[in-house]
């Protein structure tokens, strides 16, 4: 299996996939109006980064990258819990999840 990864699929493909996934996340974050979709876009960006971490870890035989991925996943889980709780609170208060309407921080 390892030979399949390392020899037949070049590293640039993984990185390209990671970049595409990240860009999709950014675009989703920027154009989507629903708060939950925005939230999912963030998760997508995190996982795109995770993919590039794993790729480099495998490429350079450095286990640090793998460990970092676990950290990211853990933070992402915590963030998901807090974020979803905030979203519920916002929905209860405002009865909407449209990001453009949640602009109380405006000067």
């Amino acid at each position, binding site marked *: 299996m390892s030979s399949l990864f390392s020899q037949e699929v070049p590293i640039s493909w993984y990185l390209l996939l990671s970049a595409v996934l990240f860009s999709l996340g950014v675009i989703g*974050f920027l154009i989507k109006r629903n708060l939950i979709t925005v939230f999912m876009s963030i998760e997508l960006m995190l996982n795109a980064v995770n993919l590039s971490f794993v790729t480099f870890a495998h490429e350079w035989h450095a286990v640090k990258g793998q460990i970092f991925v676990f950290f990211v996943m853990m933070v992402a889980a915590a963030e998901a819990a807090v974020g979803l709780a905030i979203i519920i609170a916002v929905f209860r208060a405002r009865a909407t999840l449209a990001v*453009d309407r949640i602009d109380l*921080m*405006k000067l």
Partner: protein
Amino acid sequence: MNGYLYLWLIPLLPFAGFLINGILGRSLPRALVTTVAILAPLAAFGVVLNAAWALWSAHLPLPYVETCPVGWINAGTLHIGFSFVLDQLSLVMLLVVTGVGFLIHVYSIGYMGDEEGYSRYFSYLNLFLFFMTVLVLAGNALLMFVGWEGVGLASYLLIGFYFHKNSAADAGKKAFIVNRIGDVGFLIGMFLLLANFGTLTFSEIAAKLAYPGWQGGVVTVIALCLLLGATGKSAQLPLYIWLPDAMEGPTPVSALIHAATMVTAGVYMIARTHVLFDHSPFALGVVAIVGTATALFAAVIALVQNDIKRVLAYSTISQLGYMFLGCGVAAYSAAIFHLVTHAFFKALLFLAAGAVIHAIGGEQDLRKMGGLWKKLPVTFWTMTAAVFAIAGFFPFAGFFSKDAILYAAFAQGGSGRILWFVGLVTALLTSFYMFRLWYMAFLSKPSGKAAHPHATPLTMAVPLLILALLSLCGGWIGIERFSAFLAPATGARAVEAGNAHLELILSMAAVAVALLGWLLADLIYRQQPARAERMAAALPGCYKLLSNKFYVDEIYGATVVKPLLGVSKYLLGWVVDTGLLGGTAWLLAGIATFAGAILQRWQSGNLRSYAAWLAAGAAAVLLFVLVPWSTVWPASLEFIWKVAGH
């Protein structure tokens, strides 16, 4: 006799009185306020008397110096401490300041008895004594300057004592501001002293001046700067204008500050720094001319004034002119002698005038007085003594001191004769206007309120009597003994009693002139009171010029005050303050506001716009880091070059 004189108590006792009455006075009973206020100068006078006794009985070596162990200013080579010096000069001055000061405090009990602000009045009066004694005792110019400014402050506070009256508040401000001009001179003089002698201690300056080579030049400049300070404090030309207005204060204040003590500080200062003046004949000449001109000028104005206190104010200016004349002919001891006798009779004149004003309910216009001699016998007789003293009749005090100054001027020869002659004319005018006052207030027909004066309280009568005695006997010590006593402090160039024959002739001339003045006043104001008005009507221009005091206030207003106000308002106020400073501030604020107005659009509150900026920022950083600009730039420029068709 342990030889320690506790000189520091002399200023600190009145200062304690000032603190007690100033802080607690309002809540203390009046009797206690009075006790504190009277005890402070009395105790200070006691300390001074003790010092005098030590000198008399134990032959204390003078000058005697007391220095505070803690220094004041220690910076590099500059060391200035709190040192009090007692020598013959400061002893004489202290006796006058605390002695006459004490009498005037006593008098004030009666005069201010039913006034508002009783404790405030006495606390200011004690404050004045504190600063005045500091001025007199100071062993260096800077400490003297502290007292100098302090008496100015006390004077300001007391002139403006009736501060609810606009004229009083204005007079206080005027005195303060005009004195500032003189003080600038004093300050510059001190800076020059520091720069050239490296010290401000009088004795060290004198020691350094003893070396040969100090003549004219910088010494003249220093002396003239000090003279400017003296003309401010002692109300000489051209800075005399504040003194007549200072009469807005209570009358005992006029007596103490604006006649007997503070205004003589300029004379004292010149005597104290006489070594400087001795090394500059030019500066001495200026002192003499300023003094003589002031004496004549003020005496001429005093001829037609109708306010009793203003007559006395101009006469004070005139008498101070005599003292400056004395200093100017290097007869410092004669000037100090006149200072002392003047303190007696001028304080008496003011106090007697105050008693008159008090008795007839605040009226100060001479034309509304009259016939008071029967109703106010004590005031009348004491005032008579003072009038004879100031006019220079033998054997009153003024005769001896004025004569000494005139003799010193005459003995100088040359231009001194001119000064003597002007001084003699001034003596004639002095005699005339003082007897005019005497006749108008006491001997003419009673009118108005003057018909029913109320009695003079005892606290006012006793100081009057003591001062009358001093005005009579104060001069009997004689100038020879006085100047011999002062010689160690004011230099040996005292009035030499060389030519007794000449002195007798000059004395007789002075008395004759005084008699002539009396005769003229008698002719005009007693025998034919209407004659004065006819004379005024015959010379309307002249009379108007005099009664408006030569329009000096108006001239100063037009040439100094108005341009200054104009510059302050338009150039400094509008151009510099509003335009330059305000404009800069507004410009800076405007830039910030404008930038904020643009940048605040970033703070839209829109989550997605923040994210977009974040992404754009990250992209920009990436671009900056990843693109090898050093190769891309030349390449892209080359590309553009080619595309453009080369």
